[in-house]
């Protein structure tokens, strides 16, 4: 297990600095910030066998930028999604509240065969590193009131972008899908209490390896961009289907959100290093 965790950490660690290094020169960059809300549906059998339904509020920040790798086909995306959820069971008794922060870093390659240079449809694929940290709290629990949600994944991501114009107004549609493939997640044993883990320090075995056999999840973002001056408006339908089966416990969370945001397109120019070192006086 330790070797597995080490391998995952190493692969995730490699993704980020390599991409960061390739962002050091002049490049195109698209930054967006969206806010929205929607529907949440969750089941966590450690807390309750019942399905809970409710709402969520979400904040999403994204930076999509071209790298300086020659050829202009490599891109990097840094995506942070923060959402707070509340849900009740069908009976109306009980309340579960939760909060989750998702960070992902993706290194995209623009597929040359499917999206020729200058074409309207552009397709990207690439590896993604995901970090997920959050928790849910059930107000009816005694010694099992909450679940800490902590996980890291290596995922596969694909994105399609299509640009068009209507009534002389430039627009774009984008679809992104992420599927985690390998990872690690924290979770107590089937009937283990947090008293044992945190108070008695008996937390051995709480880190589990995850892959498609126990973590079949999918995140999709369908966005529509409307270019206005001085910025672009973005409407996103965000669907996050996240499910873990760890130590015989099931956790499923579906969030469907509508988000409205703004996009700022930038072209970052790096000054000449020699010139920047010149001190006139």
């Amino acid at each position, binding site marked *: 297990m330790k070797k597995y965790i080490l391998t995952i950490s190493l692969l995730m660690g490699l993704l980020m600095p390599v991409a960061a290094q390739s962002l050091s020169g002049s490049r195109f960059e698209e930054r967006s910030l969206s806010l929205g809300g929607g529907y949440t549906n969750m*089941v966590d*059998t450690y*807390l*309750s*066998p*019942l*399905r809970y339904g409710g709402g969520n509020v979400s904040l999403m920040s994204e930076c999509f930028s071209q790298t300086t790798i020659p050829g202009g086909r490599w891109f990097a995306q840094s995506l942070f999604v923060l959402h707070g959820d509340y849900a009740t*069971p*069908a*009976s*109306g*008794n*009980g309340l579960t509240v939760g909060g989750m922060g998702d960070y992902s870093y993706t290194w995209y390659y623009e597929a040359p065969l499917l999206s020729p240079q200058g074409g309207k449809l552009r397709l990207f694929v690439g590896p993604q590193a995901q970090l997920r940290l959050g928790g849910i709290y059930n107000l*009816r*629990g*005694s*010694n*099992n*009131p909450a679940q800490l949600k902590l996980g890291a994944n290596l995922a596969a991501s694909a994105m399609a972008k299509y640009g068009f114009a209507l009534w002389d107004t430039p627009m774009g549609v984008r679809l992104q899908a992420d599927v985690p493939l390998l990872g690690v997640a924290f979770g107590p*044993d*089937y*009937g*283990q*209490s947090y*008293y*044992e883990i945190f*108070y*008695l320090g*008996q937390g051995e075995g709480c880190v589990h390896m995850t*892959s*498609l*056999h*126990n*973590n*079949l999840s999918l995140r999709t973002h369908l966005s529509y961009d409307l270019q206005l001056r001085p910025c672009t408006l973005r409407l996103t339908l965000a669907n996050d289907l996240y*499910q873990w*089966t760890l*130590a*015989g416990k*099931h956790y*499923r969370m579906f969030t469907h959100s509508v988000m409205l945001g703004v996009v700022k397109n930038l072209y970052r120019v790096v000054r000449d290093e020699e010139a920047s070192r010149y001190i006139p006086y």
Partner: protein
Amino acid sequence: MPVHKHFQFSIFNSQFIIALCAMIFASCSPIEEYDNTPTGNFEALWNIIDEHYCFFDYKADEYGLNWDNIYRRYKRKIDDGMSSMGLFEVLGDMLDELRDGHVNLYAAHDVARYWDFREGYATNFSEEIQTHYLGTDYKIASGLRYTILPDNIGYVYVPSFSNSIGEGNLDECLYALALCRGLIIDVRSNGGGNLSYAETLAARFTNERVLTGYICHKTGTGHSDFSEPQPVYLESSNGIRWQKPVCVLANRGSYSATNDFVKIMRTLPLVTIVGDRTGGGSGLPFSSELPNGWSVRFSACPSFDVDMQHTEFGIAPDIRVDMTDDDRARGVDTIIETAREILSR
């Protein structure tokens, strides 16, 4: 150079596709859902207990508990036309079969409970008589009420472990009682609360780290699926530590975290347990709920004493004493008097 066959794994290989499908279906295993009908609620409750309750094997040995038989017996009493009150009564009776004070069914109109661990026995405690000892000018340090008895014996009453007991409270309390020749800690009719408060108090009575018992948890739905029991140690406190004899007073109402407190204290050398057997309740309770909104609590993680024995049905005292009717009539607490006698020797 030979190529090992298992390295020739292609994504177009049928074995790979079958393996991938198996993984995907395994991760989509269904979560059982229950209807909000009397039958659905009965099934939900029976299954929650069946998959999570931790004393089936122990209680099968103790008194022949058979949860499958209980299903058959109580299923016959369920009818989808029955009233909510009627369903509550049947489900409450079914849970009573577990003979566990940590098992409750909570509805808006009532709480189903098993209190036979204390209701069927002598109370061995009277608040009215206790006032003859505590008086009215006793001190209160958060969850502790304390005074000095006329024979220079400290008396600390802990009515509940639900009220916080901080290190500062204990320092002040023990400092005030420092000149006493012995100490009585009365946890009679203390129904429990927070385990950590019980341990914080017990940590004042040991100068070294001591083994106090074991704990384990369920690892699956089977009645015998348990983790390896892990030792539980009590660390000595860095604050004021008591170095003189101690009597802990217990009765059948000493339950749950208080049972755990007595379990810990009896492992310490200067401590004598006086009074009646404790009520027990050694399982750490978890909660769940039914489709109709009722909440259920049940024992989920069993704990054991240092000899790996269950204390679910209580802990016997070192000195067994009941409050006598004569003493009651005279306003005397037989158990406190016995403790004073022990500490005066």
